[in-house]
């Protein structure tokens, strides 16, 4: 055996660190996907931290908390902004809410009925889709917004003849409730 196997009871270190240059670029590029000014608006006044255990979770936190993070090596800080998987940044629901405030691209707007179906975990067909940004291409991940422009989750758009004809539910804010139920 070349390497010793670690003991199952061995304590796993919680490594808190700032993103590397490359990780930062991946995150910024994902934010720019939803609009050029999104990174600047979303990150202004905040720091990004990465918690590396078995995964690389990304947190968005008020800028003046860095000394406390270094001292306490916390369980979590601020909002969970997303997760880095290889060279891909997956944005969380809390991250999506923030991004939606400044997004100008890749948005699909639902009517009231469609919004309710979507937060109950359903995908959507034509009639419930009220409007969309013209830059959306087939299979794009999109921000799914209500009739009031409020963030409901992420979807995958199906486009035919320049029209968004359906949205597959990737994740929606109903998850907050469903995860509570799972806990009980």
């Amino acid at each position, binding site marked *: 055996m070349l390497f010793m196997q670690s003991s199952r009871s061995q304590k796993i270190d919680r490594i808190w660190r700032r993103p590397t240059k490359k990780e930062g670029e991946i995150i910024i590029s994902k934010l720019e996907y939803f609009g050029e000014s999104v990174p600047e608006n979303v990150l202004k006044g905040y720091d990004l931290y990465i918690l590396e255990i078995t995964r690389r979770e990304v947190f968005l*936190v*008020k800028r003046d908390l860095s000394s406390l993070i270094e001292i*306490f090596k*916390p369980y979590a800080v*601020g*909002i969970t902004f997303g997760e880095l998987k290889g060279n891909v940044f997956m944005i969380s*629901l809390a991250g999506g809410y923030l991004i939606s405030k400044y997004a100008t691209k890749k948005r699909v707007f639902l009517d009231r009925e469609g919004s309710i179906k979507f937060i109950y975990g359903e995908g959507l067909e034509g009639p419930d889709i009220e409007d969309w940004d013209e830059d959306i291409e087939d299979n794009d991940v999109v921000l799914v917004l209500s009739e009031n422009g409020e963030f409901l989750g992420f979807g995958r758009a199906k486009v035919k003849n320049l029209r968004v004809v359906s949205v597959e539910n990737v994740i929606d*804010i109903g998850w907050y409730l469903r995860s509570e139920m799972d806990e009980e």
Partner: protein
Amino acid sequence: MKNVVEVAWPNPTKEDFEIADRYGFTPQLVARWRMILGNEVKDLIEAMNSYSRVFIRVNTLKISPRDLKERLEKEGFVLKDTFLEYAFEVVKRPYTLSSSREYLLGYFYIQDLSSMIPPLLLDPKPREKILDLAAAPGGKTTHIAQMTNEKAKIVAIDISKRRLASMRSNVNRLGVKNIVMIRMDGRKIASYNVRFDKVLLDAPCTGEGVIPRDPSRKTIKLKEYKSRVTLQRELIKAAYDVLKPGGLLVYSTCTYAPEENEGNVKYAIEELGMELIDDWTIDGFKPSEGYKLKGVWRTYTHRQRTLGAFYAVLKKSED
């Protein structure tokens, strides 16, 4: 630690046995409440048995109270104002609050009015370093955050992984970005050498006051009181150790048990030299006096028509 439990458990009367039997409490608990409240004990127990009030706290980081009220009323909810302009009683619900879009969007937190008092007593200010010593699932922590418009530095500690996971979900839903969540035994906080301007200790307790929500507490074992008091005093000592000179500790519980309330405040005054701040008021909120101790306050389900709670504000000396 001396004088851990000083408060008597009187022998139950025949009537106490009858009430206990009818409502499913232990006779000792009924006798104890009679000791505190006299004949009002029947009113308390009946109020606990029928309590169904539901309150929400508007997350003012995301929406104004007026806009939320208007939206929920359009959905068929009926809201009634409270003494807090950003809290409402929900008197009619066409469907469950937590399945509303507004809940999922993080526009409000479901919380009893009695639980909104401790952050008000703490009176958090921007730039203060604040410790919430038994924080999960985060109702009071996120309230503190919104009171400072996310401008305080908040450290929230809890020992339970499950409860912390719930707190993290709430923090994400509400979109609060100035909370550092730590899983640890709060009694060990002093080892980090960080000092705080204010500490909130909403202590783990026997929970007599939340029996309307958790009836399993009707039959709490007597030995639990002693272990709770020991833990509470160790947490108070930990809070004292990390407070800056002149710093404030808000101590609260959700129980009527005097040893967990007034007894612990006496401990903080007599053993730790803390000063009881007794001149606070909250417009529109009229709490009841403490049990044999002035300057501390209680809520009872039959009087304030909220869940039961206890509140004290203590100050560490300037030296």
